[in-house]
């Protein structure tokens, strides 16, 4: 298992280096988006309207941060469970999204899209929102402000610690439950 330091936007070459179980320290700009924001992104695509950020090489972080207290760019900011975005992810990958960041399992459709369009799924540690917020140096709402915690934010991250859960070659890091019998 290797450790990679990567910068956004992510390229095909970046993605091809990654294997399930690798550690990635991510730097640059990433975008937050969870349930309601994904619905709106897809609605915009359906209407042929532009998205609030460029999907090419982008990484979306499934997070709804807690409010920023005075003197901090953001509140607690750990990952939310990813399967709820499975319905939207393949389409976004087909348009250039290179990575999603969350926790928990992905559907077969999302895994296929990651193979087809060279993309990865990163896991961040769930329930470590205070710790992860240390790696976020700035945060700005860029769309859907009315959604509150679910608004799309542009984050600047420095050495944001991630694990490759699903790589672009069908690799899977999560343990298969031993049901026995």
């Amino acid at each position, binding site marked *: 298992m290797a450790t990679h330091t990567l910068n956004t936007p992510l390229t095909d070459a970046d993605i091809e280096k990654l294997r399930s179980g690798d550690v990635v320290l991510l730097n640059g700009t990433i975008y937050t988006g969870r349930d309601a924001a994904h619905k709106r992104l897809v609605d915009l695509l359906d209407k042929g309207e532009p998205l609030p950020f460029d999907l090419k090489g982008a990484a979306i972080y499934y997070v709804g941060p807690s409010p920023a207290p005075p003197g901090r760019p953001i509140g607690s900011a750990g990952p939310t469970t990813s399967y709820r975005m499975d319905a939207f992810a393949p389409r976004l990958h087909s348009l250039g999204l290179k990575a999603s960041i969350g*926790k928990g*399992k992905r559907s077969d459709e999302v895994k296929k899209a990651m193979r087809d369009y060279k993309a990865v799924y990163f896991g961040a540690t769930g329930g*470590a929102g205070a710790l992860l917020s240390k790696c976020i140096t700035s945060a700005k709402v860029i769309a859907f402000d009315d959604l509150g915690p679910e608004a799309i934010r542009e984050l600047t991250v420095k050495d944001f610690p991630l694990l490759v859960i699903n790589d672009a070659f069908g690799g899977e890091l999560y343990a298969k439950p*031993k049901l026995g019998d």
Partner: protein
Amino acid sequence: MREINPADISAAVARMCMSANTRLPADVRKKFEEGLKNESTEAGREIFRQLLENADLALETKLPLCQDCGLAVFYVELGEEAYVPGGVNKAITEGMVAGYKDGFLRKSSCDPLTRKNTGDNTPAIIHIDFVPGDKLKISFMAKGGGSENMSRVTMLAPSQGWEGIKKFVVQRVAEAGPNPCPPIILGVGIGGTFEQAPKNAKRALLRKLDDTHPDPKIAAMEAELLEAVNKLGIGPMGLGGDYTCLAVKIALAPCHIASLPLAVNVQCHSSRHEEVEF
């Protein structure tokens, strides 16, 4: 009747909401420290290390342990001889709203269909039981959506019995896998009615992780379920390992002769709850 000042209740509830969201309970911390030492996988030990660092940082900065500060759930025991002018519901709700605002906690409550955020984390989810005496006890739990989504209620046939219960619980944890932020804690409500089982399951999550059920038969059932669930090898954050579940807490209630209701309330590793008494 003993009068309890609603402003005192609101102030205590506000403090509890802020404190529970930023201070990892001592019994949970102890389990994390035990996991850091005993988990056999390196990836699992690394998760415990991060969670302990997260807890230290949250305490120091007053940032919430998790960005999901939960729906605010309250289990209330209200003495039949206690009186709260204006009502205990109002006093608790006002305290919750103030705590979530002043503590910079995330408001996660929304309309189920339009998905519009209510903006102040209302409604507080308040379960009131009337008890003899003139005291008031309020237990608060910040219940996150990720683990709640992995919870289930089912109506088993009485013939399925303990084996059926065990099978359902193990299957539920296996299917949930990494989603609810393992190592999890399980509240299991057995019996009662359709609505009582999950209410009892959730209340069971208020117990200390290292307590022992006073009924030795139930204590043995809890140990048996814990062992069965941990054999799944899901491990911390689903990365594989020995620590899939930190504790199982069972609550039994009599049920209809035709039924065997079963509720599994899944709680994430950061079991955030506190209580206050008046």
